[in-house]
């Protein structure tokens, strides 16, 4: 028992050490991210002292970029399921090892989500009021309490699954199915639940017509399953480029299939919503009018949403056309889809819900500099977390960091190329 704990602590220690080893590109990248994190932390400290007055939110538009980013990133986290489902339900071998990368992305995303919610709180010092048992948790009435449960649960599930599989690989043991397969299936359902619950956060508000629509939930899922795997496609190519890890084109093209179908559904659902809003011309169409065309001389969001629509449409056509079987075009489509959905699911969903107010007042919103810097900080933190996770997991998956190689220095674990050129390693070496 003590030996097992010792082994595990040694494993964690070696992983932690690994985060500090890399070439100049790694140091430049993580150094930049850390600097941006600190810029964000500085901006948050200002907000902490002076209050949310440092943002451009108001009583009229009481949620802004923080909750917008939160909403988008929950979708990214949920999309890890889109890698897991093909592997564990359809036995897709091509994606098998890549599941870990998807789940690590989910972990980094949930950390970002929690950060975005925390910075949105007026009294972060009272966070403990949210802890079930100690505080006053309004479960099951408040959808926000559901969100606390599902997000933290999802975080734990993914940390556990990744942690278990990586540790098993590290020890050179075959993972015991019963120890993780049930959790994989729970995590699949859970992934869908995190985004559904986040959608219900909005859908449940009867006083806000723009959100109080049954299609919001399905649209959330469709856009999440577009933007998430698109982000994974890009991430996998970066991994392939900067590490010696082998990822096949076929795996990327499998993901392309997922993004393709999700994007079609996403655009179709958007069309449904637009039709319902504008054809019936009810009194409740003012938020949608504000979003797409502007209202009474106010059109701050109009350029944004049309950018999103155009990006989404171009991405959709690129994904349908055979040209996106070439990675260059696939990357373009993915970037367009991610940016388009980030606008649409973020600012395009959260902000117009508040405009006009329930009493018909029109107050516009665009983020303040301080608010933007906090967001930059949290995004950098997310990228940093994902980078560090990959730095730790890639050598484990390749067998370079394992119990058997306990006496190898961290430097050798990270830079195997030199060793491989002599040993005539079969693995493809990274291009510099």
């Amino acid at each position: 028992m003590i030996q097992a704990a010792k082994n595990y602590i040694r494993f964690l220690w070696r992983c932690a050490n690994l985060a500090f080893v890399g070439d100049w590109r790694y140091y430049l990248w993580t150094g930049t991210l850390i600097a941006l994190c600190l810029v964000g932390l500085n901006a948050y400290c200002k907000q902490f002292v002076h209050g949310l007055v440092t943002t451009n939110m108001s009583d009229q538009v009481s949620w802004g970029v923080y909750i917008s980013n939160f909403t988008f990133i929950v979708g990214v986290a949920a999309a890890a399921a889109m890698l897991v489902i093909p592997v564990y339900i359809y036995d897709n071998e091509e994606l098998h090892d890549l599941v870990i990368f998807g789940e690590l992305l989910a972990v980094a995303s949930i950390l970002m989500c929690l950060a975005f919610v925390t910075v949105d709180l007026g009294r972060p010092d009272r966070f403990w009021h949210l802890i079930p048992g100690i505080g006053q948790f309004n479960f099951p009435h408040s959808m926000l309490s559901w969100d606390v449960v599902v997000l933290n649960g999802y975080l734990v599930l993914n940390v556990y699954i990744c942690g278990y599989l990586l540790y098993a690989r590290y020890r050179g043991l075959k993972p015991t199915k019963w120890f993780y397969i049930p959790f994989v299936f729970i995590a699949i359902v859970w992934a869908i639940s995190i985004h559904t619950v986040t959608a219900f956060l909005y859908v449940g508000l009867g006083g806000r017509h723009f959100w109080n629509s049954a299609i919001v939930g399905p649209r959330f899922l469709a856009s999440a399953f577009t933007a998430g795997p698109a982000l994974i496609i890009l991430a996998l190519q970066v991994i392939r480029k900067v590490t010696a890890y082998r990822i096949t084109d076929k795996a990327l093209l499998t993901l392309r299939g997922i993004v393709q179908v999700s994007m079609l559904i996403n655009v179709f659902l958007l069309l449904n919503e637009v039709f319902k809003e504008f054809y019936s011309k009810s009194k409740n169409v003012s938020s949608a009018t504000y979003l797409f065309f502007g209202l009474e001389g106010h059109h701050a969001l109009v350029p944004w949403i049309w950018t999103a629509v155009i990006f989404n449409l171009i991405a959709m056509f690129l994904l349908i056309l055979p040209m996106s079987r070439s990675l260059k075009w696939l990357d373009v489509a993915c970037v367009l889809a991610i940016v388009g959905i980030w606008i649409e699911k973020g600012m395009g969903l959260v902000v117009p819900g508040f405009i006009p107010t329930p009493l018909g007042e029109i107050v516009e919103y665009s983020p303040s500099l301080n608010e933007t810097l906090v967001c930059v900080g949290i995004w950098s933190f997310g990228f940093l977390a994902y980078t560090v996770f990959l730095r730790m997991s890639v050598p484990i998956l390749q067998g370079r960091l394992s119990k058997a190689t306990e006496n190898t220095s961290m430097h050798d674990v990270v830079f195997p190329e030199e060793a491989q050129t002599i040993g005539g390693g079969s693995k493809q070496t990274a291009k510099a």
Partner: protein
Amino acid sequence: MSNCNQNSGNCGCNKPAEGVSRRSFLRTSAVAVAGVAAMAAALEPLRDLTDYTSMEKFFQKHYREMTPDEMGLVLKRIEKEVEKQYGIRPHVKDYKPMDGVEFVYCLNLTRCIGCRKCVHACAQENNLSRNPEMQYIRVLKMPHGSLNPEEGQHNYSPAQVPEKGFFYMPVACQQCRNSACSKVCPVKATWTESDGITVIDYDWCIGCRYCEAACPYFARRFNWTKPEVPKERLNPNMSYLGNRPRRQGVMEKCHWCIQRTRAGKMPACHDVCPAGARKFGNVLDPNSEVYHILREKRVFIQLKEEVGNNPRFYYYFDV
């Protein structure tokens, strides 16, 4: 992996060359010092932090969990804090709902002239922040023929009210029976009491503003920064759930002047109204004016009835 490429100079394995460890020690130290300095610079704004929280405040229980003794201590502490900040010793009480009372508010749209005297009386009574300026009541200038708030004007300022062709509709918290705000609050910091007033525990609210998004009446207000009330305008008659000074980062809203109404008085907005448009009272009392209005008036409405929150605030006409 042990047979490392000796040609590459910077492979740190096996036997490191003499001096490398010293150099790497210096490098590590330099990075660590730079890191600490950068961290300190990032945290620098925290130096302006004054009176954020204390052990007592941090561990203070939810309003409904406190024993009378604990509440007594909290009220004393609040009095001391107010005295320290404003130089005035206030009376802070925890007014409880009265048995057999359910409050209802009725507002006569035929009579309201849109003078906004209620708005200002409310600010004075309830110690609303003057900087930034906060108001619980929003008066809408409505064109004849519509009750849709979207048709209303918020920022009217003619030389004289009322103006021809318009009527005026003051809107504040509607004290709903099925209140969306208390349903969505993740920490039960807002709830409806037995006399029908929806209250907020300012010391429990975490400031997530979900209630503000949920409210169909734009009734809730957030303290985006530290609220300021001039010393000479502070109302020293305070209640825990009502008009005691609020802190940065929490919600507040109209509570039907809990410190007045639970002591048998009428709300400030009611007393100040020069047109007699406001009627407030106990709907369970057959002799009350509100009982009479809801019984006798042919038309009275709840704002946004279709949303289903079932307000205790009614608008009626002289018909």
